[in-house]
């Protein structure tokens, strides 16, 4: 194989390694991959860099692999370099083009249109197969959770969402004054009086491509506030539940709401941790 072709292939590997290592140190990696995959990004980057650089530097060395190739003079170590079906330059273009385009286009965020599509679905906790909230009482909540200055228990939306349908935990949380942070959008269903909005947060199982939204309806006494679509808010209110078609939905009756900056750790670990 020609030395140039070997070097082109090495360049592909080095490019992939640069991408992996760049993202490993990038503070937005958590927007792409769940934490448990991060170490593999580093490992993959180091492997690709080692292979690519080593092969680039040794492209001119002819091979001798020191094991049996039979008794044929013509077929020695070069058989390790099997005939590729792909021209290395074409391969280079196919691998690098989508990477460059994606790097140019990425905003490191899920677009508003996709968030709308994900959060529009009216899911209940029963739709999620696993509900790993440990059993708790008001005493355990007092010990485990902090409270806002006005006495609201600070719980995340997943904890509130997954209490619905669990009769024991519903009893603990029903009527409780709680505070949570999430994104805010209009309520597309179960909103006959027009005084409801929807909170949601996204969670991923492996990567951003499999993101799902966990929603919760909130209800206002008066008119709904005029916040920007999908803005982050901190909401406090009284927890309650409503049953419709045999499904239990959590409902937060709002006492106060304020817009907040995007919190650190915007992506939740969800329920799979």
């Amino acid at each position, binding site marked *: 194989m020609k030395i140039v072709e070997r070097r082109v292939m090495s360049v592909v590997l080095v490019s992939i390694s640069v991408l*992996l290592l760049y993202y490993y140190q990038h503070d937005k990696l958590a927007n792409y991959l769940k934490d448990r995959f991060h170490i593999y*990004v580093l490992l993959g980057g180091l492997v*690709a860099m080692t*292979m690519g650089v080593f092969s680039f530097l040794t492209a001119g060395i002819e091979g001798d692999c020191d094991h049996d190739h039979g008794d044929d003079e013509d077929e020695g170590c070069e058989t390790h370099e099997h005939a590729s079906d792909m021209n290395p330059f074409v391969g280079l273009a196919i691998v690098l083009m989508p990477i460059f385009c994606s790097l140019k286009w990425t905003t490191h965020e899920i677009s508003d249109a996709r968030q709308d599509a994900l959060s529009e679905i009216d899911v209940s906790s029963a739709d999620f197969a696993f509900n790993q909230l440990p059993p708790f009482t008001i005493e355990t909540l007092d010990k485990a959770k902090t409270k806002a200055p006005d006495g609201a228990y600070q719980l995340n939306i997943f904890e509130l969402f997954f209490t619905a349908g669990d009769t024991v935990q519903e009893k603990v949380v029903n009527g409780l004054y709680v505070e949570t942070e999430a994104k805010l959008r209009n309520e597309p269903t179960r909103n006959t009086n027009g005084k409801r909005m929807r909170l949601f947060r996204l969670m991923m199982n492996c990567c951003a491509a499999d993101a799902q939204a966990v929603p919760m309806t909130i209800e206002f006494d008066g008119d709904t506030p005029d916040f920007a679509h999908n803005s982050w808010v901190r909401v406090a209110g009284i927890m309650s539940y409503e049953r419709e078609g045999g499904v239990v939905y959590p409902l937060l009756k709002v006492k106060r709401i304020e817009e907040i900056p995007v919190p650190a750790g915007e992506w939740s670990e969800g329920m799979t941790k």
Partner: protein
Amino acid sequence: MDLQRDGSWCRSLLFMDPILANHQADFALNFLSLFLEGAPYILLGTLISGFIDVYMPSSLMDRLVPKNKFAAIFSCGLMGLILPVCECAVVPVIRRLVSKGLPISCAFTYMLAAPIVNPITIWSTWHAFSEQDQWWVVLSRIGMGYGVAVLVGIILLALPVEKVLRDSILKTLRSVKDKKAKSAEDETCCGHDHDHSQDHSHSHDCGHDHAHDHDHSNANEDEGCGHDHSHAHSHSHAHDGGNNRIVMAMRSGVQDAMDVAVYFSIGVCLTAMFNIWYVMNQEMMAEHLDSIWLETGGMMALAFVLSLCSTSDAFMAATLRGVGIGSKMAFMVLGPMLDVKLLFLYQTVMRKKFLTCLAVGLFVLIGLLSVAWEKFEPFREVLNNKASVELTVSNEGGVE
């Protein structure tokens, strides 16, 4: 004409449309997240494949795999328990093992089973379904994945390798087989044992051992069995670069990485695009999947499109709303065996015609098995009774 007049057609082409801008950002996020998730495993796989290529002699495969073809297939289906790999990493490894002479029936059984029958996937499935028929789901997934993989392996016993493997792999495989045959012929041609009693191991200053096994057990070669025992030696003994095995291993790994990366890249592109379409239309899809057949088919299509890693797909399956256990099983069994990116990765090993048959076959077989499995209540009840007793005890303890 209208499209051209109002300019939307032109804007779309130029990616200036706001909707397309959203889709571009989502495509980029999907592509990069899938690429970052899968590429490390592929790279590790190709590194291993490079070292297998150079350091593993072809004859080792003959010694490792059981002689009985069926025993070999059944044992290869369980190899994932010892060598746990996900579906991305297994493809380059399999390419190399097939080139080394591992029978395709064994290789494909391992390739299809390993992403499911491995400790990591088993643990993640167990964890994900901890509140939903745990025993049933875990055992079903292992059983179905193993069964399907073994069945494919057995079917491959009846197929000529030329109809399965692509030309580049065949060429390497033939080369290995020719050498093995030639070597065997040299050893047995005259009906008696030419034992290598005089191994010539000699070291040069290059620091590694050049073992040449010559047969000199017959005192007089010309008078031995009547044919010519002379043969040429393959090593030129020109070592200007020192010990080059590591160079060859790396070079082989880089070439594998290049081949696989091309198909992986195309597969991830398509997955990212399909994923956008799915999210925008999932409500409509859910409404139309109103029978067990459609639901199962839909879930398999989803597994195909989403291309999730087998080590994590159980978490996704567990969170899919309103879906029957059989359909979830179809999702978790088909996904590690066949998805968009795998379809392209498999093209580095298989002929397109065979790959099409394999894809359709897996889709139909797993669909039928999953529907049947969902209806197979008695065994499920037995397993669940045990689990529900444990859960009841646990919950009561928590409430108190």
